[in-house]
């Protein structure tokens, strides 16, 4: 997937967001080995130090851990991953709901709309899961 | 580092000069064979004329190319775009200048050797071996007559002086190029003017020194000494020593000017 960066937002934050999403969505499944910093930096076309900074942040949050000799891995800890999904989905829900409110929808209308959407789109294995979980 | 730099001078000159040497020497051998085996009138027809003309052109081309390369290797390799590479090498400016000067000197000497080789090879083609030995004896006797004393020693001294005079001219050219390089435009013109400017300075300096010599009576002393010694070995030695000292002084001055301008006032564009 191509990396794109928006202006005016620190690049390490944008990388962080991207890596969090990739881990939450299972692009990097629990326990998986992550590519080396330099390789990923090259793929993204960013400075290795910036990539390193994003990784350090992920490590602090306990989503990623380093094994001294063999590299970096996604955590196998389900609670940490659930926490990650929740925090990501909170952002998405917050953005979606405030847009809907701006469009003039009432809160119960939003709930109805989400209910309708879930019944029309039966749960599948992947995809827009984070949105559903937030409304469970 | 210096030897590596000189190695690259060898390659840079060699790729142009060596084919010229080979062609000249090869052709001279053919001419020699022609002299030996062909009747004399073979040289008056157009083939003979063409061969001789080609031979002369090759000799002139070799000499001109050697001279051109001596200047061009300094200008193009140090003062034009390649200067960005050369002045980024982990060597001092003096090493760069020295490598150019020694490279040029080596090729000037190789040119002389190639000239001797050309003549020798032509002779080899032209005459039987017995006569070559006799010719060599003749040459050494002629040299002996020419230089009063032992021919070989004198020969070496004059070679040394020739090398020094060549070095003086070379360093004067380098200094002139370095001065011309200070301009932002018309650098070649600047260099040519600088060369003649240096000539003027040299004669002014010589004039001043002569005047000082006359006033202090030093010149008078020398002249009377020279009159006493005239034509003798001592007189010759005096002339040689004076030439060597003058050359060394000029080489030092020109080198210092070149070094200063290249190390402290480099102006690559």
């Amino acid at each position, binding site marked *: 997937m191509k990396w794109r960066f928006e202006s005016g937002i620190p690049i390490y934050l944008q990388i962080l967001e991207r890596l969090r999403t990739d881990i939450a969505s299972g692009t990097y499944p629990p326990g998986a080995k992550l590519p080396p910093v330099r390789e990923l930096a090259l793929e993204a076309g960013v*400075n290795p130090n910036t990539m390193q900074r994003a990784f350090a942040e992920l490590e602090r949050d306990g989503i990623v851990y380093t094994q001294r000799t063999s590299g970096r891995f996604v955590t196998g800890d389900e609670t940490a991953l659930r926490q990650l999904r929740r925090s990501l989905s909170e952002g998405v829900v917050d953005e979606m709901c405030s847009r809907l409110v701006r469009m003039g929808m009432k809160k119960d209308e939003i709930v109805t709309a989400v209910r309708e959407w879930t019944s029309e789109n039966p749960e599948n294995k992947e995809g827009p899961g984070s949105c559903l979980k937030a409304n469970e | 580092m210096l030897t590596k730099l000189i190695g690259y001078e060898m390659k840079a000159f060699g790729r142009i000069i060596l084919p010229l040497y080979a062609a000249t020497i090869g052709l001279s051998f053919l001419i020699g064979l022609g002299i030996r085996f062909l009747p004399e009138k073979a040289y008056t027809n157009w083939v003979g004329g063409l061969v001789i003309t080609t031979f002369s052109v090759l000799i002139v081309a070799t000499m001109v190319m050697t001279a051109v390369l001596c200047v061009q290797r300094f200008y193009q390799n140090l003062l034009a775009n390649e200067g*960005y590479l050369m002045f980024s090498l982990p060597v001092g400016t003096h090493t760069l200048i020295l490598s150019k000067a020694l490279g040029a000197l080596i090729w000037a000497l190789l040119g002389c050797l190639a000239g001797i080789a050309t003549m020798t090879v032509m002779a080899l083609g032209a005459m039987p071996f017995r006569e070559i030995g006799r010719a060599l004896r003749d040459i050494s006797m002629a040299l002996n007559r020419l230089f009063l004393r032992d021919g070989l020693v004198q020969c070496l001294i004059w070679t040394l002086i020739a090398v020094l005079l060549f070095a003086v001219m070379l360093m004067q050219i380098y200094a002139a190029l370095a001065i011309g390089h200070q301009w932002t435009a018309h650098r070649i013109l600047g260099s040519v003017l600088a060369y003649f400017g240096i000539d003027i300075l040299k004669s002014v300096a010589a004039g001043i020194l002569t005047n000082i010599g006359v006033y202090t009576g030093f010149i008078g002393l020398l002249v009377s000494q020279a009159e006493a010694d005239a034509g003798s070995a001592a007189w010759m030695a005096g002339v040689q020593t004076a030439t060597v000292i003058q050359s060394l002084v000029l080489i030092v001055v020109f080198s210092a000017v070149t070094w200063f301008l290249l190390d402290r006032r480099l102006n690559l564009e």
Partner: protein
Amino acid sequence: MAVLECIDLEKWYGNVKALNGVNLALEPGRIVGLVGPNGSGKTTLIKLAQHLLTPTHGQILIGGMEPGAETKEIVSYLPDRDFLPGWMNVESLLDFYSDFYPDFDAGRAGQMLDALQIDPHRVFKKLSKGTREKVQLIMTMSRRASVYLLDEPIAGVDPAARDYILRTIISNYSENGLVLLSTHLITDVEPVLDEVVFLKQGHVELHENADALRERTGMSVDGYFREVFRC
């Protein structure tokens, strides 16, 4: 410890001040963008660091030393023009670099040239302009240097070549090396920069971490640059 340091650095060309009291300290392991409009002194600063010019006042130090033969051993420099001898072929250029720079990794350079399918027997001046630029970049980045000085490496190249150049820089600079990269095309290099130095009329207008600048101003480095240098 700063690996490149300028102290009250001034450079005059006749009566024109090209650099006017530059104070700067750059740390190893960073990629630093030296940005500024044409004539702001970028090339002058880089040439001073490589002893191709001498300061009028003040000092510039590389690893604590004044520029000279010793510093050139640890500095890898890419000028903003063709600088390799045109008559040499690519293979003899590799030999040349191996001869003079102990830190030159000929194997790595050879691999990169192979990847571009450049025939090592081709004479340098017969290569296309784009290929010549890539060869020069490969030679420069194949040294394990402490400082890389790259003068306008992406000026006038197409987007594909620009990507190639930036990737080559990121994947080859030694981890503890400083990369100082001058450019007036900031957008293109923004993602690879750790820090930016804005040069304005011969002095340092700003020296900041690139992400910190984006956070502080809410603008891209390029956007902020346009603000600072608005005519």
